[in-house]
Each structure stands twice: as structure tokens, then as C-alpha cells.
């Protein structure tokens, strides 16, 4: 997709994925739960996809629970943790995805306290606060493996050291899986992910977790270890499996390529524009460059770029799609004068050097015109 720089919102579906899904949908497959040939054939597809995804995230196949995406995974994990017996709490940072913060807020009204460990300007949460909270009672600590708005990557050593033994850690890995190495285990008790962030289809994702760590909060059939009952979304699962396999093979090379593209883009932008700051760190997500341009609003830049064929994103958008000051930028302590000017440029496998050079040129013109008018 030419001009597309919003891979953190969603990625184009890989052609290999589309092909595999079309094949799975055109075959006369039964229900994987059925004990006949058609059912067994479906079961085979399901198992294969589960193995592929497990391979990507360093889990055993039986540790993969298919869901509709990371939002649902976060809900299943957090609500399932809160439903366990005993006094418990949820710990998050202040810059999590809305599916984490809204779920924690909701659970707080239902009797499971929500403890917030604020991040500093480098996106690092208050580890002492996490230590204190998890020492006091069993907690579920929930944080992003990589923040989709700012590109900050969690310091896993510091984080796992801070979470007390009796507590659990849920990593929201929607923006990390397939982009940087992510593994279940080694104190990571659960992991949420979405296929459409790494070239798979929308509406399918997974929660990776060991046995018996959370309670069931939905009722129905025995599918997905009873944690996510209901007939499986087989085409989606097949597509996610193929995307996972592709990504596992390509990830290292692709990450290096995207880091080069990202840093080249920043170098050119910061050379061409006055008064521009970089919010995403150098050791952050390879594909994510988040910046803020002095005196030009995200709204004007987004619209101005869209008019010439480039899709970027502001930090955050309301239900109506209007860019608004993001809680992530506020949490990171971004200066007030840049809060409404945040632009996120996120790339992916379709992005070329030519594309980024053209984007830099267009962005420079959009900003220059806006500043001249003002």
C-alpha cells in the first residue's frame, strides 16, 4: 500500500495469508469438534495454525487460546484473574492501551482495586510501586510489551524482577509480536496478541497462557480450554498461522531494515524542519517513529498528508476519529505545546526507502504551508 504509514493501526494482509484463507474457506471443512472426516480435516488446520503461532511466541501449542484479538484477550485475562478467589489487585502503567485501562477501571468498580504505576519520560514504569503493590497481595501486572503510540519497549529484566513471586504478569504484546522477540514464560504468565498487527487478518488473535492461571468468565462449549467457548474462526486462525510463520522467518532481517528506514526518516525530517521533537526512543519499536511538530496541529498534518495520499496517525483519536491529546503523550510528560501535535509514522513490510523519502517531502511541505499561513 503506497503512502501507508499506519501499520500500528493495522497492517495490510499478506498475499500468502489471503491465499491460505481462501483455500481453507473453499475446502469442505467441518466443525473441528466433530468426530468425522470433515471435522478431522478442520481440526488439522486448527492444530497446524496453533503450532505456528506457538512457535512465534515461544509457547507450547496447548498454551495458545484463540480469541478475536488482543482486546478480547486482555478482557479474558484480566477478568479471569479478578474472578479468582482471594483479595487481588490489577497493576498497570498510565500509558496502556484503552482495552487494558478501561477493563482495569471497570474491575475497580466491581471490587478489584486498580493500582497505577506511572511511567517516567523514558516510558519506564515506577518499578518500586510495582514491587510494593505485588508484595502486598497477589496482583496481575498488565503492561504493553511495546507501546503502540510511542514505540517504547518494556524493560523485561527490570519488570520481571519487580513483580513479586505471588503475582502474575500479563504482557499486552499486540504491537510487539512479530516485530521484536516475545516469549511466553520466564515470568511472563500471559500474553495478548492480534493477527492484524503482523500481516494476518482482522478479528483474530490469541491469549497465550499456561494451564489454570485464570478463572473462566464465559460459558459455553469446550473450545479453547473453555476460556473462549464457541466454534472457532477457522479461516482467521489459518490466516494468523500463516502470518506467524512468515513473520518468524523474516523478523530479524525486517527489524534491521525498518530501523534503518526509521532513522533515515528522522534524520531527514529533523534536517528539513525546525522545531520538531522525537517521542519514540531509538531503542523502541523498529517500525515506529513518533514525532511532534511545533505550532502545527496533528489534525492539520493528518488531513494535509491525506490530501496528497499519505496515511499517518495522530497519537490518539476519539470515537469520531478526531485527533485528540493522547494519554500516552501526557503520561510521558510531553511538553504542553506539543501535546496536540503528535504524529505517528509506522511502517511495515510494504514500506520502501522511496516511500519514506516521499513522505518526508510531503510532510515538510504540509508543515511549511501551515506555518506560513499562521
Amino acid at each position, binding site marked *: 500500500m503506497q503512502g501507508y504509514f499506519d501499520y500500528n493501526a493495522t497492517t495490510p494482509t499478506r498475499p500468502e495469508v489471503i491465499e491460505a484463507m481462501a483455500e481453507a474457506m473453499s475446502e469442505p471443512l467441518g466443525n473441528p469438534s466433530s468426530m468425522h472426516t470433515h471435522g478431522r480435516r478442520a481440526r488439522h488446520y486448527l492444530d497446524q495454525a496453533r503450532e505456528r503461532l506457538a512457535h512465534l511466541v515461544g509457547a507450547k501449542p496447548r498454551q495458545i487460546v484463540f480469541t478475536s484479538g488482543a482486546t478480547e484477550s486482555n478482557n479474558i485475562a484480566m477478568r479471569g484473574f479478578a474472578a479468582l478467589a482471594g483479595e487481588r489487585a490489577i497493576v498497570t502503567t498510565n500509558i496502556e492501551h484503552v482495552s487494558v485501562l478501561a477493563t482495569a477501571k471497570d474491575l475497580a468498580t466491581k471490587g478489584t482495586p486498580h493500582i497505577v504505576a506511572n511511567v517516567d519520560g523514558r516510558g519506564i514504569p515506577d518499578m518500586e510501586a510495582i514491587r510494593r503493590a505485588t508484595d502486598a497481595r497477589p496482583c496481575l501486572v498488565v503492561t504493553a510489551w511495546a507501546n503502540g503510540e510511542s514505540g517504547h519497549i518494556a524493560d523485561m529484566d527490570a519488570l520481571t524482577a519487580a513483580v513479586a513471586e505471588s503475582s502474575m504478569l500479563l504482557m499486552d504484546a499486540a504491537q510487539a509480536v512479530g516485530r521484536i522477540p516475545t516469549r511466553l514464560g520466564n515470568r511472563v504468565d500471559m500474553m495478548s496478541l492480534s493477527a492484524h498487527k503482523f500481516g494476518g487478518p482482522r478479528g483474530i488473535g490469541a491469549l497465550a497462557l499456561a494451564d489454570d492461571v485464570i478463572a473462566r468468565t464465559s460459558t459455553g462449549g469446550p473450545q479453547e480450554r473453555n476460556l473462549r467457548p464457541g466454534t472457532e474462526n477457522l479461516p482467521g486462525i489459518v490466516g494468523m498461522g500463516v502470518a506467524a510463520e512468515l513473520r518468524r522467518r523474516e523478523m530479524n532481517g525486517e527489524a534491521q531494515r525498518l530501523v534503518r528506514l526509521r532513522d533515515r526518516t528522522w534524520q531527514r525530517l529533523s534536517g528539513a524542519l525546525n522545531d520538531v521533537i522525537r517521542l519514540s526512543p531509538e531503542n523502541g519499536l523498529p517500525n515506529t517513529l513518533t514525532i511532534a511538530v511545533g505550532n*502545527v*496541529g496533528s*489534525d*492539520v498534518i*493528518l*488531513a*494535509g498528508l*491525506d*490530501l496528497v495520499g499519505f496515511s499517518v496517525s495522530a497519537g490518539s483519536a*476519539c*470515537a*469520531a*476519529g*478526531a*485527533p*485528540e491529546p493522547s494519554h500516552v503523550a501526557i503520561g510521558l510528560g510531553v511538553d504542553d505545546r506539543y501535546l496536540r501535535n503528535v504524529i505517528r509514522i509506522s511502517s511495515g513490510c510494504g514500506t520502501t526507502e522511496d516511500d519514506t523519502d516521499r513522505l518526508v517531502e510531503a510532510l515538510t511541505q504540509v508543515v511549511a*504551508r*501551515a506555518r506560513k*499561513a*499562521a
Partner: protein
Amino acid sequence: MSSIESTDRRRIVVAMSGGVDSSVAAGLLAEQGHEVIGISLRLAPEPAAGTPRSSSGCCSVEDFQDAARVATALGIPHYVFDMREEFERSVISPFVEEYLAGRTPSPCILCNREIKFSLLHKKAFELGADAVATGHYARIEHDETGYHLLRGRDHHKDQSYFLFEMGQKELATTLFPVGHMEKDEVRRHAIRLGLGVADKPDSQEVCFVSDGRYAQFVARAAPDRVRSGEIRNEKGDVLGTHEGIHGYTVGQRRGLGVSAPNPLYVSAIDADSATVTVSERGALAADGLVASGVTWVADDAPGDDHRVLARIRYRHEAVPASVVETGNGTVELRFDEPQYAITPGQATVFYRNDEVVGGAWIQRGIPHTPHTPRTPRAPRDAARPTAVETD
């Protein structure tokens, strides 16, 4: 003469509310071959929990979706810009303050001045547009003396009253594509263009008060500053009590909760003592008024000619009057015939025929003095509650 030549293609931002007027405005400009960019403004905060959502107001997600659908049908780009912070500061907050000061605000005028013809213009220019169009029922004409603001052709829909603070600079970069049409014609265009919003009802209420209950809105916004007080007659006798002066408007008759042999009307509101004064109809007559913050569409005062047709609120037929500047942006307006219920906080707008020459914000009425030769005759609705009127 029209201020737009249809032959040269321009980049024009259209403020799209999702309603029929701004949708048709966008459609007509696109049809003329202009590069049209639709922008919807997010202005009102989310309704407070537990208050009903109005489906006919604007700024709901549904309205933005309507605007987006219209834009798709027209093949034009559409964006939503978040201006809640500025709207809160320059429209909602003054609205609350005015009520607490015993005055009756006119928020649409502020929104036009601070948001649509200021902030949106700025954003539009930053995007490389050279004009902003809206669905207002008003006309802009241009000749050798400058730009002129005129009433909309459809006098029932005319919104020029709410636009009186526009000056030459704003008029030069603004278009009102439906201002020369009747509402029916606009609806026919919506059908012809296949926009799907032809039957949408007009918005009637202040967009940020979703249930139309202004007094409750003020009380929610400033609970600590609402205080009860007394309702007195002109002699000072206490006739009753009230729960806050923000529930009253000069000229209001209904809902006073006091009984008297003759109908009583609110004639004055004193914020300091929280006193609402009620009087019989005759006491509401005024020979003129004092208003401040005067602006002239031509940017300069109209010289020695003091004769105007003045409106003292939106639903008021313009009446002959003389206006004189008395310094510091203050004007004194003298009616040829006494007028009823001069409401502080409302705007008085001056016309010559169909043209808006200027306007100012009403501070107080000049009471009718009995030796004026003619006895005032009040039209039946002269003293009805004005509450808040919207464009």
C-alpha cells in the same frame, strides 16, 4: 455580484455538521468544480452520565457519520477536528458565566466568532484552503465598497443575526452557498444530490445542552455558585423564592411560581443580591438600550447616518431606531416605538434593508418614560421568554 467566480477552482473547507444545509453547501461547491474538503468540528463534551442524549442536536458521533457519508457520496475528503477545549473556553464557559450574572447568553454568536470564523479559518488556511463555507442562511456580496453581509433569502431561516460580528477579513474568505435559497430548495438539492439527509430535522437547541434544560446545565457546571433568592415586585415586596437566578430571563412570564391578579413578567435580575424582579407588562417597555462591544461589518462606523433597523433578539422583527456611539465600544440605541423585554446578554443587530451593518451586546434597557407621546402597544408575544436562541 457573487463573491465567488465559479470558473476558478479553489480549495474550500466546508464546515459539515451532518445536517442538510452544510451538506448541500458542500455538494453545490463540489458540483461547481471546487476542491472541497469537509471538516466536522467536535465541540461539545460527552453528555454527563445519566443525561439523555439528544438525537437532533449536533456533534454526536451519528452526526459525524452522516457528514462522512455525505462526503463519501460527494467524493470529497472528510475529517473531524477536535475543538472541545477551545469551545469549552470560549463558548460554554461564557454561557455559564452569563447566566450566573443574571444575563441571557447567545452562544451561537460566540461560536461563530471564536470557532467557525476564527479557529476553523486558521486551520483551513493552514491546510492551504483560501475560503471556508458553512450552511448558514445569510448572503455575502462584494462591490467596490467592500464585502456586505445580508440576510438569507429565506427570512424564516435567516441567520445573519448570529453572524453580525463578522468583519471584512472574515467575509472575504467565507462562503454561504445556501444563503440565497429557501429551505425547500435546499432540501430539493439534497435529494437531487442523493445526500440522504434531506429529511433531517433542523437543530433547535444549544448543541452542548443535549436535553435542552439550560438551568440544569448551569447548575451542573457551577454547583457551588448557584444560590437561591427572592422574587420581588417593583415595590420590593417578596412574592416568592427561586432556586437560582440562572433559571430566569428578562421577559419571562411562565414558570415564575408567583400568583398575581395580572400576569407578571421578569423585568430585572440582580446577580449580587440574587433577586428576580417581576412587573406587569407595561414596565418592560423600553425607549432604547445601551449595548457594548459594538462591531461594524464595514469595520468603520457608518458615519453620520444613525438610522438603522434593529433586532434585539433573534426572533424579533427589526424595528426602526437610531444608534449613536458613546465611546469605548458602547452604543445607545433609541427605538422609534418602545420595545418590550430588553434582555441583557442578547445581541442587538443593526440592519439597513437586508444588510447587516453591525451590532453590539445588550447591557441594559432604557426604560420607557411615560411622557413619550404614543402609548406602547405590546404584541402578544412581545414578552414571551426568550431563553436561548440558536442558529
